[in-house]
């Protein structure tokens, strides 16, 4: 009476539905040569997990070292290489690709009712460029490491530090082209391949965010590529633009670098905001409040984000008037972010709210992003930024946004779309516990850093005066808790692949075209091209309540 016997009597066609995981081959080369956007999304997921863990180990070593004021665990040179490695891998090889290349790749074509992205082969090329760059970066680390910090300021990077900075720059350069191609692909896909009836103002907000992100990717990343190339050329041949001995200005590097890197932080947060819009609406069973405002706020952030780079340079003796302009614009760029937060909160009003794991992450995002964003105002304030610049206040600020914001949103999105991606359900209770653990661990790690920063604790310090120790201990303790919060999902996601309950097509009862197909979807996403006839997020909290009660 075993199930095996029963199964063997089932006609072949019904045995296992064809999904993108099986259709198209199950060999390694069918994956490595795939042009299916869903498989490419998964390839990216595996890659970024690897880079994330290397960078996380570096962070663990850093926090361990900082438990004591003396630099007694690793040498100064090793410490400097560790924080450089952490920054480079986290920024370019984890955060920037995370939501766009994993969730964006997987979800965008389905969300618009298309069979794939506009240029599937370019999509695969992007993944290879990304990893080629990653390998170059890892190579730089293995042969000795780079100690310039992820910001590569000249003339230290171009004239004083070791030559590995060239291979590292090359790695980021190559990976950058992967990013550019991904952005290009998304822009054309969203412009040209929407299903009939899916007008711009009917698109889910995730698409508005990813579209804005892609515009930034496409316009800002080339400037980074050029800047790093110029720095590397100066390193190799000593003939550059940044050498004061030739009358060059090292600060020019900073202008060029931040012209990219400020928009880059919006590349890193906008997709997270897009995910949150999807999650809040689904788990509050409510239409988003202020759809147009939220949609256009993504566009506003993308535009304004290009105009504020000088706020990283208030203490470089940039002109006072430039400082005024950058400070003013930096305050302004907070406005569209505020708009999103207010609208998400208002969406909860008179909703029907449940607290599954994705919602916990979405709510966590709002809380942590608000803190991160408000502390950004401290840094936009000229006189206060002079004091806070290059201290732990900055470190805390950007970790609140990047980790408390982006990583949280990524986790939320990953849990939300996991059933669609894998066809399995993750264990819900564990998911909620992991979310809470990360929230507690995160705040304990990074909140003390705000206090330390105002006290004057500089960043990138291997050893420090004793009075800061208490804060470093709290921070390191928090980091150990945070680590648990990130390891747990890795374990249970892996577990779910084999033992998780099989997921229905729409486990969350969500609106959106991606839920109109099976979990996991077939290779071509839809049997027939869907037609869109209404607004997104057509949820009804009252209907939901009726279902619950009766």
């Amino acid at each position, binding site marked *: 009476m075993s199930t095996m016997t029963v199964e063997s009597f089932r006609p072949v066609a019904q045995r296992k539905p064809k999904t993108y995981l099986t259709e198209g081959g199950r060999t390694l080369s069918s994956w490595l040569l795939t042009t299916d956007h869903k498989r490419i999304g998964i390839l990216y997921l595996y890659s970024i997990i690897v880079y994330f863990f290397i960078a996380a180990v570096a962070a663990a070593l850093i926090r361990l070292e900082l438990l004591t004021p003396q630099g007694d665990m690793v040498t100064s040179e090793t410490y400097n290489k560790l924080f450089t490695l952490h920054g480079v891998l986290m920024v370019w090889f984890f955060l920037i690709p995370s939501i766009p290349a994993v969730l964006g790749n997987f979800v965008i074509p389905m969300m618009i009712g*298309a*069979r*794939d*992205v*506009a*240029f*599937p082969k370019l999509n695969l090329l992007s993944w290879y460029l990304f990893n080629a760059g990653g390998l170059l970066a890892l190579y730089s680390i293995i042969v000795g490491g780079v100690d310039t910090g992820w910001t590569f300021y000249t003339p230290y990077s171009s004239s004083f530090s070791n030559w590995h900075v060239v291979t590292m720059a090359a790695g980021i350069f190559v990976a950058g082209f992967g990013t*550019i191609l991904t952005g*290009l*692909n998304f*822009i*054309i896909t969203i*412009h*040209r*391949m929407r299903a009939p009836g899916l007008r711009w103002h009917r698109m889910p907000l995730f698409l508005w965010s990813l579209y804005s992100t892609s515009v930034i990717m*496409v*316009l*800002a*990343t*080339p*400037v980074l*590529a*050029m*800047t790093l190339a*110029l720095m590397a*050329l100066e390193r190799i*041949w*000593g*003939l*550059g*633009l940044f050498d004061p*001995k*030739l*009358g*060059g*200005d090292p600060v*020019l590097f900073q202008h*060029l670098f931040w012209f990219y890197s400020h928009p880059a932080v919006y590349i890193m947060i906008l997709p997270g905001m897009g995910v949150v819009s999807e999650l809040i609406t689904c788990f509050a069973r409510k239409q988003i409040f202020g759809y147009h405002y939220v949609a256009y706020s993504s566009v506003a952030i993308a535009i304004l984000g290009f105009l504020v780079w000088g706020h990283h340079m208030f203490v470089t003796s940039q002109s006072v008037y430039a400082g005024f302009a950058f400070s003013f614009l930096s305050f302004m760029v907070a406005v569209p972010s505020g708009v999103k937060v207010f609208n998400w909160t208002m969406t909860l009003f008179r909703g029907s709210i449940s607290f599954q794991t994705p919602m916990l992450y979405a709510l966590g995002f709002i809380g942590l992003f608000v803190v991160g964003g408000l502390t950004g105002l401290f840094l936009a304030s000229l006189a206060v930024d002079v004091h806070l610049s290059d201290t732990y206040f900055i470190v805390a600020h950007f970790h609140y946004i990047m980790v408390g914001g982006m990583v949280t949103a990524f986790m939320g999105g990953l849990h939300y779309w996991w059933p669609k991606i894998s066809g399995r359900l993750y264990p819900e209770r564990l998911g909620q516990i992991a979310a809470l653990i990360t929230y507690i661990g995160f705040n304990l790690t990074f909140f003390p850093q705000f206090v330390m920063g105002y006290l004057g604790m500089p960043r990138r310090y291997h050893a420090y005066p004793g009075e800061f120790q208490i804060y470093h201990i709290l921070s390191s303790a928090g980091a150990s808790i945070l680590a648990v919060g990130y390891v747990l999902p890795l374990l249970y996601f892996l577990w779910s692949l084999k033992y998780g309950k099989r997921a229905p097509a729409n486990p969350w009862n969500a609106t959106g075209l991606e839920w109109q197909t099976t979990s996991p979807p077939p290779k071509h996403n839809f049997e027939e*091209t869907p037609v869109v006839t209404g607004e997104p997020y057509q949820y009804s909290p009252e209907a939901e309540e009726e279902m619950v009660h009766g």
Partner: protein
Amino acid sequence: MAEARTALAEQFEDMPQQLEASRQGMWTFLATEVLFFGGMFMGYIIYRHIYPEAFGAASKHTIVLYGTINTAILLTSSLTMALAVHAAQESRQRALFRWLLVTVFLGLCFLGVKGLEYHEDLDEHLWPGAHFRADLPPQSQIFWFLYWSMTGLHAIHVTVGVVVLSMMARMAARGLFSTHYHTPIEISGLYWHFVDIVWIYLYPLLYLINRYS
């Protein structure tokens, strides 16, 4: 038409969608290229503003004859490229093939002239560094660094263009393009015109400052 059907990639609904997507894709790519070159143009603008005399002195040593010849070559090649696109739109196979070949040839001429020019520049000790000619102020090295990197990057783009257009010519010879389907020719044309426009900016900025003062 079997050719037209097989030319439609499976992610697209129909040929017009594919054409539009390809065109938009190339325009977006060209926008990234503008920003890519933009970093160096920015550096040029800033340093020229701070060191006008050093830049003027440095620019006098560029070989304006070669620069002008190359400008003429590239402008002509843009014309021949446009003629190639036109021929493709009208399904004139032989004309398409010939115009593509001429464009490739002109591109190679450009690179040849550039090669000669670089050779002479090196003979004149215009490579920044320890052996840079002593009769120019140190800030002239910044000009010359920009010269080598901007024209070098441009030359790489010309080379890529030459390779792509050669491939287009080969495909044209096999009769793969027609009024119905000539997207690759169009978007290669866009790329080629872009490469020409970059040169049109480089030429006066590098060769013509202070030349006649």
